[in-house]
């Protein structure tokens, strides 16, 4: 049943089954197609992998179904060329950690896992060295962005190959902003608050999630803290410095914003809530990847016309972003490491990556700089803003190194909950002290 690939005939949803077995007759197909393979395969050499070799890749369930389709087709092509079997398994983002942990502990599982955020550092001991791929890729494609590098480079070696960074921007309704007197999206947090006040008075507040979910809440709260000049820990990765004026200002600002401008149900929101609420027209501004825009394009033409995107407002300390990354890691327990690396090289190589990048729209920011001038970014001017966010992105646990401790702080939602506590009525100082104490426990000071 799964083996059967389904047709692509204009379905709204996805036409790709979750997992596709890609089988190929090793001898015939492999040899015949070799000539067409660019660079990565040494011409003339017969596939060096015994017949029946299986490669298993575990990936998140892509939001953009078209992206999955392209990826699967590439996997199929690779399998044919190499005369092996490639299995692409896709599961929910949140479950990837569970599977990765279980796989590393049981020393069996997928050969390649696409690991979110800075988690490669968490699993560093279970991941194979992929420095060769990354160094070649960096050289070839104009170097990696700092964020991508931070999440996949562990001191001396690369532990994963960054695949892409999620883009993010404020999504807003141009028509309603105009009604409120804003022809341009505000550039500072103070203006943002002014705008929010008007919008909320009109019954169309700003929507922001504060629940325990991976992306949206963190995207916002970290950006806010950094913009006001706060950060979690010094460069040494030990000295917790969250308890600063900047952080306190950010909390105060957000608590006021909550009452004046935000939709007061954000405490229970997850990553999906704002997408649907925005499209339903119950709010006028929310921070998100372009997924809202894409759904509007397919299903809500009237909303589609009036959406636009804007960068993060500037705070006293500047303008920053927290963005999730996905990186391909080769598992140390894997018996097919060589083949796994070959596969990563294949889908990260320019010809393949470009096809994938194009269908992903501006949802995925490539980890290397060579793609900056690609027409994907400028084809739709409303999406160009997503290109630059990565330049001002900071890694989790800034200014400390992006390691295990930073992930722990993130996974415990300490910064998010600091804001939530203040929203729920704690004094900003009390919330800040709570968060600082928690961070100190994590960083061990």
């Amino acid at each position, binding site marked *: *049943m*799964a083996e059967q690939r*389904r047709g692509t005939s204009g*379905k709204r*949803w*996805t*036409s790709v*089954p*979750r*997992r596709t077995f890609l089988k190929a007759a090793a001898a015939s197909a492999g040899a015949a197609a070799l000539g067409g393979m660019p660079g990565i395969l040494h011409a003339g050499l017969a596939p060096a992998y015994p017949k029946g070799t299986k490669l*298993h890749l*575990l990936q*998140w*369930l*892509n*939001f953009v*179904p078209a992206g999955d389709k392209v990826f699967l087709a590439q996997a199929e092509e690779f399998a044919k060329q190499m005369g092996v079997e490639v*299995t692409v*398994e*896709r*599961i*929910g*983002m949140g*479950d990837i950690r*569970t*599977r990765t*942990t*279980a796989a590393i*502990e*049981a*020393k*069996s*599982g*997928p050969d390649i896992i696409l690991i979110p955020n800075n988690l490669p550092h968490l699993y560093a001991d279970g991941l194979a060295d992929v420095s060769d791929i990354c160094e070649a890729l960096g050289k070839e494609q104009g170097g990696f962005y700092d964020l991508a590098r931070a999440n996949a480079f562990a001191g001396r070696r690369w532990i994963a190959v960054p695949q892409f960074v999620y883009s993010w921007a404020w999504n807003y309704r141009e028509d309603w902003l105009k009604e409120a007197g804003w022809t341009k999206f505000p550039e500072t947090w103070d203006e943002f608050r002014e705008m929010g006040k008007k919008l909320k008075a009109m019954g169309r507040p700003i929507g922001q999630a504060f629940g325990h979910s991976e*992306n*949206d809440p963190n995207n916002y709260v970290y950006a806010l803290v950094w913009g006001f000049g706060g950060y979690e820990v010094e460069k040494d990765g030990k000295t917790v410095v969250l308890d600063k004026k900047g952080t306190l200002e950010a909390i105060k600002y957000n608590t006021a914003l909550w009452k004046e401008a935000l939709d007061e149900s954000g405490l229970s929101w*997850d*990553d*999906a809530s704002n*997408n*649907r*609420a925005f*499209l*339903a*027209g*119950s709010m006028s501004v929310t921070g*998100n*990847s372009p*997924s809202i825009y894409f*759904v509007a394009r397919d*299903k*809500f033409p009237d909303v589609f016309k009036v959406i636009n995107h804007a960068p993060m407002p500037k705070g006293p300390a500047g303008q920053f972003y927290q963005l999730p990354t996905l990186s391909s890691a080769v598992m140390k327990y894997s018996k097919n490491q060589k083949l796994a690396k070959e596969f990563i090289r294949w889908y990260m190589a320019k010809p393949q990556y470009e096809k994938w990048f194009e269908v992903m729209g501006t949802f995925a920011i490539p980890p290397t700089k060579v793609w900056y001038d690609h027409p994907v970014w400028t084809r739709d001017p409303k999406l160009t803003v997503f290109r630059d966010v990565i330049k001002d992105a900071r890694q989790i646990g800034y200014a400390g190194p992006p390691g295990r401790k930073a992930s722990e702080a993130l996974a415990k939602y300490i910064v998010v909950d600091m804001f939530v506590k203040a929203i729920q009525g704690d004094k900003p100082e009390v919330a800040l002290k709570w968060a600082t104490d928690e961070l100190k426990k994590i960083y061990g000071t």
Partner: protein
Amino acid sequence: MAAVSSGGWRRWFYLYLPLGAIVILTLFPFYYMAVTAVRPDREMYIPWNRPNFAPFWTLRPTLEHFALLFRETLFARWLVNTLFIALMSTGISLFCGLLAAYALARLRFPLGGALGTGIFVTYLVPQTLLFLPLGEVIRSFRLGDTPWALILTYPTFLIPFCTWLMMGYFRTIPRELEECAQIDGATRLQAMVRIVFPVAMPGILSAGIFAFTLSWNEFIYALVFLSSATQKTIPVGVVSELVRGDTFFWGPLMAGALLGSVPVAFIYSFFVEQYVSAMTGAVKG
């Protein structure tokens, strides 16, 4: 219970009205699931405070969500997997639990009480603790990504449950029943199989029903021990296929929830009847 005198308004007031209210509350989420499952996608973008929010019905019912479930996911396959795994693990657990329960409830042997408590205690061991070390066990038996990984691990929380439930029932069966049989010349084992087990049928059924439900529901082990889409169970399959990034496919999700429960509900409706009447019969007889 005789809290209600027969007939008249009292019966309405004490019985029909509250029971009706509770039934409606219990079933409402199902109704809502059903409506959501046939509601066109666009209607699911109407906030609750809009005048055109129509919660209880939809004017343009659609089967697209069901179609999607069967066309784009392996739902039918998951249903079969889940059934197979649940039936097998329930069978194994009932077998083990029944024998163990009889021994613990009826036979005298040293450390009997301690063993009983010991079996029970295994039920307390949290799954969140077990699933990592269990992963190693599964790997060393080479069971990863096969239904047997679940069929053999589910009994870990089903056996204690079955054992204890059955012990309770065995204790309600008068010893005289089997002692009479033994006096008539039956061996202990014969008495157990021919006399006690049939009488304990309602208990066995109820233990079976609940064991089945527990395995039907299980999530963590199924998530961790299976990786092929063709092997997955309904809870894991539906959730990981229909919650995409920051988008929930509510229609197909609800369609899946509905289809994942209605067939079982149908079987249950039969068994529950058996269960209750068998129990009543057992006592009267």
